[in-house]
């Protein structure tokens, strides 16, 4: 027996997830253009592994498999994880990461909507802590690399771990801008002068386009990306102003690593972020600040994943502390607005 309301005008959950996937496409296209077909292989691997893990967990938990596997949330998680991996990473990295993300990051808590931590970031952190070497093997962008792998060679490396005769991975490897900056600073060389970091700035642009689409579609609240990017930029600018030689500037930080991907697609995961407006600003700004601090003073080149996971823990508390006043109960007045 259905009760009121008898009307609905919501974008169904599945379509919400599809729109998020669509918003990732500009960035994915740029990543393929910059790094080659390997990116697509990572996406495919992660997707298959995530869907299979999701289906298995649902079956074990006695849930309707088809309805929940098709909600699109596992795919979003898989894609976000795949896009954080080096494009030439061995196949088992994406598979293992996705399995961890879905099984330990999501299903263990009770599935969609119940998880405390961002599942994609759980998978990412498991990988970067367990396999730091493989996770830092970023090949140089196609256009700039000392050596060049064509599509079949890329796939051969991902799935077979083999490289064309006479090429070692070192010949392909290149430090990411964030890594380069850290290394330079540690060696006492001048760091990047606040410039955007070349190719990764292109990528950032792709995520930005997708993020603006999500904002326009009202699928993400503005407080989350703005709070995150704002805090990251302000801190970076402050440190850069205090010691330009040791710290890259705001633009560099916004344009490199996972800053924009994180701001629009990871910090904005509704399940693990607060639901109140003020809570969202505090949460996102703290995550942005932590990202900067980990980048500048931590042991890992990028800090988005750790920052988000740390702030995930604070979400319930932030929700508690930032409850907005209810209609007619706004402090100290008999209702005059």
């Amino acid at each position, binding site marked *: 027996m259905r*009760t009121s*309301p008898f*009307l609905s*005008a*919501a974008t169904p*959950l599945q379509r919400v997830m599809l729109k998020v996937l669509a918003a990732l496409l500009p960035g994915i296209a740029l990543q393929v253009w910059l790094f080659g077909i390997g990116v697509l292989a990572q996406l495919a691997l992660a997707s298959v592994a995530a869907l299979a893990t999701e289906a298995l967990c649902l079956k074990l938990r006695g849930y309707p498999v088809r309805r929940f596997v098709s909600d699109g949330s596992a795919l979003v998680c898989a894609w976000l994880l795949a896009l954080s991996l080096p494009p030439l990473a061995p196949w088992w990295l994406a598979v293992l990461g996705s399995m961890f993300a879905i099984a330990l990051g999501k299903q263990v808590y009770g599935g969609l909507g119940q998880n405390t931590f961002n599942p994609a970031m759980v998978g990412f952190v498991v990988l970067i802590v367990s396999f730091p070497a493989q996770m830092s093997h970023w090949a140089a962008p196609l256009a700039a690399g000392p050596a060049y792998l064509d599509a079949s060679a890329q796939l051969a490396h991902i799935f077979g771990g083999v490289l064309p005769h006479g090429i070692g991975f070192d010949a392909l490897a290149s430090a990411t801008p964030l890594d380069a900056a850290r290394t330079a600073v540690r060696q006492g060389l001048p760091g990047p002068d606040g410039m955007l970091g070349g190719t990764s700035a292109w990528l950032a642009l792709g995520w930005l386009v997708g993020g603006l689409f999500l904002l326009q579609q009202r699928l993400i609240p503005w407080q989350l990306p703005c709070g995150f990017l704002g805090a990251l930029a302000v801190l970076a600018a402050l440190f850069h102003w205090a010691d330009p030689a040791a710290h890259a500037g705001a633009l560099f930080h916004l344009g490199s690593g996972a800053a924009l991907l994180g701001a629009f697609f990871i910090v904005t995961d509704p399940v693990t972020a607060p639901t109140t407006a003020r809570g969202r600003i505090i949460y996102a700004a703290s995550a942005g600040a932590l990202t900067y601090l980990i980048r500048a003073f931590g042991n890992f080149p990028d800090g988005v994943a750790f920052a988000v996971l740390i702030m995930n823990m604070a979400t319930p508390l932030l929700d508690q502390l930032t409850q907005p006043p209810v*209609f*007619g109960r706004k402090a100290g007045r008999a209702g005059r*607005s």
Partner: protein
Amino acid sequence: MSRILHPFHGGIRPPEHKRHSNGSRIGSLPLPSQLVLSLRQHIGQPARPIVVPGDTVLKGQTLAVPEGRISSALHAPTSGRIVAIEPRSVPHPSGLTELCVVLVPDGQERWVERMPFDWRTAGIEAVAQQLCAMGVVGLGGAGFPTHLKLGSGRGIETLVINGAECEPYITCDDRLMRERAADLVAGIQILRTLLRAQTVLVGVEDNKPEAIEALQLACGGADIEVVALPTRYPSGGAKQLIRLLTGLEVPAGTRATELGVQCFNVGTVYALYRALEHGEPLISRIVTLTGAVARPGNVEALLGTPLDALMQHAGADDGVEGYLYGGPMMGFALPSLAAGLTKSGNCIVAKSPALFPPAPPPMPCIRCGDCAQVCPAELQPMDLYWFARARQFDRARERHLFDCIECGACAYVCPSHIPLVDYYRHAKAELWAADAAGQAADLARRRHQARQRRLEAAQQARAERRSPHAAPVPAVTSPAPVVLPPPQTDAPAPLDEKQARIAAALARAAARRDGAGQPPAAASAQPVADEAQPVADEKQARIEAAMARAAQRRAAQESRR
């Protein structure tokens, strides 16, 4: 008219579907073969029948009189014979039966003698009594007896007239304002005079330009402001409308009158005008017949008209798979069309799969917060849902569950299609049940203690009479009987809760008038001040005081909710 509006938070813009039914004049129905009149046509206690089967009645004759404080009278919508007073199904989601008066029309339409009421000189109390006797109740859907909203004729600065009609499909107020604007304005003037209101604001959503124009014309030079409101559901909620027009927010559990505002629906004002100026009791109402029907429109139907007669008149399509009583946002599905039309029946929607596609199965909540964006009560619906699901009802209450007006905006935008309002109704019902159980236990404890004290006092008196060395015994007055609230017999239904709150508020107001300044719940929870108790009983006294304090705290909490 450019009045500064104070938009309320949230709200939605569902498709209006008003065009189907608002294009034609208010029609009428042939006399049905019988009228089924529920004695519960309003919030509060059902009316008490004063006719018996076999009686012949005239049109407008009183069939049942108000019973208790919150009640209203019921009249014969046409002349005829009472054939039964028995339980019949009434418009209710559960299909329950209520005592109904069944009237078979004689086709004569013979009226009782109708006398205009001299409301100008009668005084506001007499007017209230008259309205109660005339069976005038809120026609906006809630059915609250109108005479209880008049107050004392003091302290109302702003009179708000609700012509917003924000629910999709419903157009009965729209047609009323278009076709009977002059009478409506006359009714508004009566109310303004009675309440001595400085400002009169009529709020109408801007999707009804014809109604706005008709009202403005009818107002002429009168100092009545007809305000076009942006179309946004639920602007017709009394609190949302008051906020829109005045900027005042009436907190849950308090009454608008405390802020110097009172709000009446246009249909109610029209009924009040008919009752006072023409001596016509409330025996019919305008009802929208719409949805999947061949002839959508509005009819002025006699109360008690069988709903299937109404739907036959409108010509329900073949594909109809159910009917809604009220609008699609706040109405309910009728289990059958057997019931008779009631005073709160503003609309019947015939549901077809094309108009109302089945709801997809609910998915888990992803905390997207869309519900909080649209909640006009500015609650956090996803949290309330979470607490309700986890059976943490007290947490839901702390987060102001009872401020929820069940408008359905949250469920309307939920991407997971969760029937959120159901969860809130369920949580409220659980809390009412728990409160009732708590009250019953309190009551039993107080009775037991009172009895113990009586027995002790009697024993002491006997012992002192027997003792030869006893000083002359002061006569032990038996303790005053404990004033106890009437035990709640039936499981509290939502209406009862509302009723209880209203009753409490009224009692509070009365207490304030009497200068008592004590919420009645606390007053009745005061344990007996037992003057006969010797002072040595200090411990007992301390316990009593603590109990009284606790009771007062509880009562204060109750009244805060």
